[in-house]
């Protein structure tokens, strides 16, 4: 063990130098201004209001988008409602063809979408290029195939569309979350009004162009931009029959309250505080990669991030040494550099939230480790952070930080690991690292979480249902189960 430790320390001491490897952006054009996408056309907002969207890595404005208020939301819902009937009655195989077209167009325009995603949201280009955009296209491809097979998915039932869907998505995976929302809704025969997050509206607006390119019937997909007020108007609109929301548990609860008594269908994909559990027999180097991927992927702006590391006491010291060495090698900086591991924090507000929670960790007595790394002068940045000596009552062990901050706790027995892992109001995801197959199954049976990764972390696939237990929400996205929130079953 000592030998392993020495050699990895020696490796970490050798700092690799990287030349800049910037992604080309000359093939991308962002319009100075985007209207609302309603009834198949971009229209000026009746609110007359616009707001900027900025690049969080530079704080430079990228474009200006419309703020949809009451008259605009109404107009979008009316457009969706008038498209609903014909889309719902369209021959299912034709619906499938439109969705297949969309999937192909996403693939064809993949690099453009990846670049815009990284510009607007701050995520490293290697993630938007290799994860977000391909998964979004795959999601449409998967659900396209379901459109004309719904009767086989639910034998003995008569699946029917639920009606106009109001969908609100977060800023952490803008295009991918759009795909998770729109693909199953369209396959099930619903028309949608989707609101992207106010800090990351651009790929949704490019998606609107893709709907035009696909000749999707007008009104089947409507994209409205705005912030919380716009979302609230959409959720409470009487002609919206189904509400789907991905975002914080706090807002999710407000939405659940707002739709109470209305008879609207609801699905919620909310926060998390996942335990990533490492046993002493785990392949530690592999586990370290999984821990890094679990918490630093997408700057930790991931609802299922492995933000609580539970490590068995007997290997804690060794694992933490390896983890610190590995964190030292992470490259933080320009999201459009192909070598970047950790990009920009999505917004100033999110940066302040992360800073506040990190301060609480220090005040409550946890020990902090941050690798030496130079952060750019402009933009929103936060270094990868590891807290040790964390107790279960600390805010950093209980609250979702949604940033590159890992809280480390230890355990002795499998039962204690389960107890600690489940000691949270959330239940979205968990990870287990051990070489023992029967223990994996024992653990995964007991973890109260909707997605459990064994000896891996943060894997996603259109065929694989995703969603939480407890206060992480209800309903599933992905897979056959992902159709259910969008169908009525007689």
């Amino acid at each position, binding site marked *: 063990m000592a030998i392993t430790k020495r050699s990895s320390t020696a490796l970490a001491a050798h700092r690799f130098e990287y030349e800049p490897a910037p992604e080309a952006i000359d093939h991308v054009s962002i319009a100075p201004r985007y209207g609302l996408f309603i009834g198949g056309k971009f229209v000026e907002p009746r609110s007359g209001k616009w707001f900027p969207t900025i690049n969080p890595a530079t704080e430079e404005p990228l474009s200006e988008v419309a703020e949809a208020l009451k008259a605009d939301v109404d107009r979008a819902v009316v457009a969706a409602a008038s498209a609903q009937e014909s889309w719902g009655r369209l021959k299912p195989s034709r619906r499938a063809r439109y969705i297949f077209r969309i999937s192909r167009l996403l693939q064809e325009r993949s690099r453009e979408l990846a670049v815009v995603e990284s510009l607007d949201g701050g995520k490293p280009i290697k993630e938007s290029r290799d994860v977000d955009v391909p998964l979004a296209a*795959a999601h449409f491809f998967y659900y396209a195939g379901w459109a004309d097979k719904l009767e086989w998915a639910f034998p003995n039932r008569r699946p029917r569309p639920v009606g106009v869907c109001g969908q609100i998505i977060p800023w952490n995976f803008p295009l991918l979350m759009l795909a998770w929302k729109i693909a199953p809704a369209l396959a099930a025969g619903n028309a949608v009004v989707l609101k992207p997050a106010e800090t990351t509206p651009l790929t949704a607006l490019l998606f609107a162009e893709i709907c035009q390119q696909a000749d999707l019937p007008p009104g089947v997909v409507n994209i409205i931009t705005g912030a919380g007020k716009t979302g609230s108007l959409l959720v409470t609109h009487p002609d919206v029959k189904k509400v789907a929301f991905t975002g914080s*548990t706090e807002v*999710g*609860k*407000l939405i*659940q*309250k707002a*739709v*109470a*008594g209305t008879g609207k269908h609801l699905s*919620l994909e*909310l926060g998390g505080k996942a335990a990533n559990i490492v046993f002493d027999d785990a392949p530690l180097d592999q586990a370290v990669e999984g821990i890094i991927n679990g918490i630093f992927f997408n700057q930790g702006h991931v609802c299922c991030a492995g933000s609580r590391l539970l490590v068995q006491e007997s290997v804690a010291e060794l694992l933490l040494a390896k983890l610190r060495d590995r964190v030292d090698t992470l490259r933080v900086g320009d999201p459009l550099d192909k070598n970047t591991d950790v990009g920009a924090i999505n917004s100033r507000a999110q940066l302040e939230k992360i800073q506040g929670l990190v301060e609480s960790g220090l005040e409550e007595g946890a020990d902090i480790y941050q690798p030496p790394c130079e952060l750019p002068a402009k933009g929103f940045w936060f270094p990868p952070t590891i807290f040790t000596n964390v107790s279960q009552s600390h805010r950093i062990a209980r609250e979702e930080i949604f940033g590159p901050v890992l809280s480390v706790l230890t355990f002795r027995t499998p039962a204690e690991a389960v107890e600690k892992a489940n000691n949270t*109001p959330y*239940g979205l995801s968990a990870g287990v690292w051990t070489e023992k197959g029967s223990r*994996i199954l024992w653990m*995964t049976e007991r973890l109260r*979480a*909707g*997605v*459990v*990764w*064994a*000896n*891996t972390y943060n*894997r996603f*696939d259109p*065929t*694989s*249902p*995703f*969603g939480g*237990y*407890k*206060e*992480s*929400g*209800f309903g*599933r996205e992905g*897979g*056959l*189960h992902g159709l259910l929130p969008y169908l009525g*079953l007689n």
Partner: protein
Amino acid sequence: MAPRLDVRKTYKLFVNGEFVRSESGRAYRPVAGVNVPRASRKDLRDAVRAARTAFDGWAGRTAMNRGQVLYRAAEMLDGRRQQFIQELGGGKPAGREVDAAVEALVWYAGWTDKLAQVAGTVNPVAGPYFNFTIPEPTGVVGVVATETPALAGLVRGIAPALAGGNVVVALASESKPLPALTLAEVLATSDFPPGVVNVLTGQRKELLPWLAAHMDVNAIDAAGCTAEELAAVQEAAAGNVKRVVAHRNGELSPSAVTDLMEMKTVWHPIGT
């Protein structure tokens, strides 16, 4: 010869496998001459605590075992058919209602070990992983029974919840509580571990808001709620993101089970 003198039953709440009086000491008389316990907020809290304690054990039973226990409840209920008919007011409709309750128990008993095969999936992900999704119980379920049918409505609420491995705190029909408390005697002799199913009687307006807002209740079957009650339950449920189900009109459906279940997806790498 003197006429036979009945030994009358004292109706009690069913909490943690025991027949208990309401801690409040109160009663109400929805049926002439019969005192029915009027459960309090504290009785509700005790019932939720008992249910939570029983959850791991019941959820951890094999599906086959849960099916056997539910089937035994059907046997016990069928054996007391005449008593229930009498408590429901006698006549053919009462007989049909008891039969419907027995049928629900038998039907859901048969679902316990088939659900994962019907509602679960193996997911062909694009990578070297064995990935599957299985239904798991959501936890403590509050069942709000319909006012009528008082017996069949209650059974159609608790049977699917229990079949899925959940534990139950049931609020009985307020106007017709007797069949629910007698059903508790059926449940008590069917090998359910203590706390797995709890039955409370009393006033809906005294209990429902606390059930809906309880932070350790995971889901509510609101079949017996009025539209106003349902809206209030849904609003209070947001406090801890409870699942609220409120449909079904009495039909038997595997959705009644899966609506009170969570889908868990597990990824296993494939490698040497």
